[in-house]
């Protein structure tokens, strides 16, 4: 499959996920170390994760959906934080392709992702534009 056909084969409206994730202490600690998060207040005082520590999972969902995807490079990233994510809780991330286009020879995908808790409450809404590279 060529790069064009791989990109062209992705339908607008395609849904990906849900990706289930448990925000246990080890998972949170590992992510905080990776991003050099120093402010202990959210975890120690409020028992919640710092903002955005699950956003890297959005790319993971795409790689799971498209085995021939080699690289996904963010061009634009928008996020609305609605409710904290509790340490120890389970979350579910669902994404959907809402647009795609070609600009200056590059293939762009626009996706929306929603992160919900076990009760189905939306915690985070995201819209991301990324370059699709086979």
């Amino acid at each position, binding site marked *: 499959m060529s790069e064009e056909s791989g990109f062209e084969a992705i339908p607008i409206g395609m849904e990906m996920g849900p990706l289930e994730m448990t925000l246990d202490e080890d998972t949170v600690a590992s992510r905080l170390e990776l*991003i050099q998060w120093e402010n202990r207040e*959210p975890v120690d005082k409020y028992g919640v994760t710092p*903002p955005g520590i699950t956003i890297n999972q*959005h790319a993971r969902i795409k790689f799971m959906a498209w085995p021939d995807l080699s690289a996904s*490079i963010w061009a634009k990233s*928008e996020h609305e934080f609605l409710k904290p994510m509790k340490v120890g809780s389970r979350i579910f991330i669902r994404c959907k392709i809402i647009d795609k286009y070609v600009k200056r020879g590059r293939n762009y995908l626009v996706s929306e992702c929603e992160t919900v808790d076990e009760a189905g409450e939306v915690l985070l809404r995201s819209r991301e534009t990324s370059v699709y590279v086979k």
Partner: protein
Amino acid sequence: MTGVTKPVRTGEEIPSLTKTAYYPIDPDARNVIHTDDYARDLGMRGALVGGSTLLSYVLGMLYNYFGQKWLYHGKISVSFIGGGVVNGDVVTSHGLVTAIEPEEGGTRLKLDVWMENQDGAKIVVGEASCIR
């Protein structure tokens, strides 16, 4: 303690946050933009630090400023420009208050946010807002 506690005016810059960028290099990374060979083939200086990691640095600055309110009312929109960030780059996140608007539940501060590297080149630019 984090969170806005003093009066704020438009034109004010919030406290910046500097990090030495780091992303674990895995030659077998699924996203090959995080491998040296592929990134250099694209003309980059080396494996790129992940965009979500750079975003986390900006979010760190915003959480330090807005505190818990960011987790309920924070909005951010950023674009990634320039040649990206590689391990060892010293990057600083900035935020400048551009508007203060009344909103149900408080006052929403709007900011221009950006990240620049040790050479002063902007690599992330965008906007953020949060109720204070």
